[in-house]
């Protein structure tokens, strides 16, 4: 090894790093998964079934595919609509609301950031569940806010615990309905009772990322709920049911006053042309696509439930295109064993479900590949 070099810049780096805010210094940097070819090379497989991100295995609806196919490359030189003007018009017509009540972002995660930045300041708190979509907690933490997490009750959000966690410092309550990763959801009565007891000056984010997978009349429609409860902001996405995860389009809808506030901290021009065009088209012919997706998901869920029951393993699969199973080994070990057979799932330790994995529900071939790999992995025990 070479003799160490003198480097005053490096010498001062420690001091510099000590000056960054503690809530940033202590934050875990999210590490996205590597591209498929890299993973396949690392794990020595020639095929990789992606069952980790709850993507729609059927892809986008037909009109969205067509819209993308005819998109001219030359349009890449132009800026997109800075506020997704046309898409908001389509959403407004779809839901019978003013276009000004919609805010479109680069996926729901960007919208979460805009809402937290708009409504919160240091010293404030947010309330959400311990075992739910992680981004609410992450954004709040790296924004220097207190995150109050309440445990689940019977795998579902616990309304009483969440209400008890709210106080004068609470600015936002995040409800994931249906909940990712358990798939449990609140019925209309539960949500109404919760909102009735919550102080009206607390913003409620009702994240309905998986609502299109639910075909049950008891499921509350956030677009309707917000008209009775003006503190409710509804989040939806084109990444799940609409199969546009790669283009990153999500949106919120709420009372005009709240949306105007959220817009102040939202980055304009963040949604690209392809995303806007595809999302507009996706809404135009979604009925058949939604029905086909629901059928695929139901078939896959039945198949995996049978597999897990045969193996004597506990599983949770409510609404949404995913199912969780408790494995007899560490979930991170199971992930590696499955990856060696070309199947990628989501480990649940990070969701505070240690030894559980979440499997996206897809077509038969992928489900059968998972089932084979899963059994082989268990045989090693």
């Amino acid at each position, binding site marked *: 090894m070479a003799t*160490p070099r003198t*480097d005053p810049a490096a*010498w001062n780096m420690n001091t510099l790093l000590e000056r960054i805010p503690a809530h940033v210094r202590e934050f875990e940097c999210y*590490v996205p998964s590597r591209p498929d070819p890299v993973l396949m090379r690392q*794990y020595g497989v020639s095929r990789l079934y992606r069952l980790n991100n709850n993507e729609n295995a059927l892809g986008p609806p037909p009109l969205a595919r067509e819209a993308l196919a005819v998109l001219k490359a030359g349009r890449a030189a132009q800026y997109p609509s800075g506020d997704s003007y046309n898409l908001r018009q389509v959403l407004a017509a779809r839901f019978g609301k003013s276009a000004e009540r919609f805010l479109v972002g680069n996926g729901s995660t960007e919208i979460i950031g805009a809402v937290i930045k708009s409504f919160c300041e240091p010293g404030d708190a947010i309330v959400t569940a311990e075992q739910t979509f992680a981004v609410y*907690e992450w954004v709040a933490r790296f924004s220097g806010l207190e995150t109050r997490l309440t445990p689940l009750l019977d795998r579902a959000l616990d309304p009483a615990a969440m209400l008890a966690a709210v106080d004068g410092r609470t600015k936002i309550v995040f409800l994931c309905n249906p909940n990712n990763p358990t798939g449990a959801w609140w019925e209309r009565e539960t949500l109404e009772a919760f909102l009735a007891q919550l102080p009206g000056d607390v913003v409620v984010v009702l994240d309905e990322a998986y609502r299109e997978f639910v075909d049950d009349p008891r499921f509350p429609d956030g677009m309707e709920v917000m008209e009775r409860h003006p503190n409710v902001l509804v989040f939806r996405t084109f990444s799940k049911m609409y199969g546009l995860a790669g283009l990153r389009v999500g949106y919120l809808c709420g009372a005009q006053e709240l949306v105007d506030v959220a817009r102040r901290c939202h980055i304009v021009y963040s949604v690209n042309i392809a995303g806007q065009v595809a999302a507009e088209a996706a809404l135009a012919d979604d009925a058949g696509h939604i029905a086909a997706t629901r059928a695929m998901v139901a078939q896959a869920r039945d198949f995996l439930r049978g597999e897990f029951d045969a193996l004597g393993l506990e599983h949770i699969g409510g609404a949404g295109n995913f199912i969780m199973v408790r494995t007899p080994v*560490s979930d*991170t070990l199971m*992930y590696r064993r499955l990856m060696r057979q070309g199947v990628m799932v989501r480990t649940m330790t990070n969701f505070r479900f*240690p030894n559980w994995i979440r499997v996206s529900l897809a077509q038969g071939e992928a489900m059968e590949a998972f089932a084979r790999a899963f059994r082989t992995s268990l045989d090693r025990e």
Partner: protein
Amino acid sequence: MSVNAAQAVFLELPPEASFLSLAVSAAETAGKAWDLGPGRTPRLALAVEEFFEYLRCNTPPGETLRLTLRRRGPALCAEFRFRAKSLDLRAMNFAAGIAPEDGREMGLLLAARFTDRCRLERRGPDGFMLAAEVDRDYPQAEPLRQAPRLQPPYTPLDHPPGDILRHAAMLAAGRYPLRLCPHGFSEPGRLLDMVEAGLYDALVLADAAGRPAGLMLWRAPAERLSVAFSGPYVLDEARDPAIARGLVEGFLARVARTPAVCAVSERPTEDLPEAYFEPLGSVTRTQGGEAVEQRSYFRALREDEGASIWACAELEPFLRQEYERLAFAREILPVEPDGGEAHSLLSTDLDLRRGLAVLRPLLDGRDLAANLARHVEALVREGAPDIFLHLDLGQAWQAAMAPAILAAGFQPRLLLPHGATSDMVVFEHGDAAH
């Protein structure tokens, strides 16, 4: 000189003899201000004196010495930061200066005798930190051997009150062998100070009446990707597995969204639910003159995406076997010893209370085999029968040291994924005491 929140004092000192008294005086003042006690403060002052004198004599003009006196829970720590420029680093080896012809002992060896822990760390391309710690004295508490009759349900306490934590520690001390008990179990005041200072995190499960039913401890060593845990300590008579599961699930939930990428056992008890962990193997620890196998467990907290590591041919069979067993995707990049500079440098973490020494390479050198032999000889003589060496496979120059390490009587015992900048091999010296 500046003071930071009453927890640290910083001095920047010219390397001149006339400033020795200032450095020593600062150590004495810190010892008095932070209750190190009249019997322990002179030890810290002696370490500061020894370090300052060595660094002063070897620091070129224009450089300064940075001394930090820091309160770290139950200990006071003296840290000297310096640059390696023009310094004879060979003398910073623990075993340097002990050859009879040198005529004197200095540096880490001498400091190790009158401090509780000392270490040399590399900080950046040419920065080093030489540190010594002296612990405060705490009253001993008798272990409690009579377990209380507990009443479910059990509730997790994230920040257990001091009396509950003290009670849990004393109960654990009465139920588990000494080697599985941190020092703070026999001196609960020490444990409370460590938890308060953030050196340990503690999770207590309390029963319906608020009595401690279980305890789990963990710590996140600085600049490591792993958390090291001790436990689970199950405190009811029947050793209810539900308590152990509750502790482990609670522990995992609390570290799942931290920067840690894995959890590694430090003192795993027999109550550990193995389904949550992966056995790495075992190392030999000395207890009362007897050799005891201590098993080691690991658990990744994130999805592993594969990696490349460096390895010599001599170590490759061991690595391939372990990677296959643990199902880790690793590309092994070959490396060969290149001789490097003339002199190697090793850091030594020495804990004489536990009879434990951990070596880590800081610089490669052609004298490595001889240097390792000198270290083993010195450490055994000082009373550390358990000697380990940690090798970072993310550093090619370290991986290239494997043949010399094997030749010096060390054997690879554990492969620890993400244990360093990449994976780490734990070598155990075979002839030290076993």
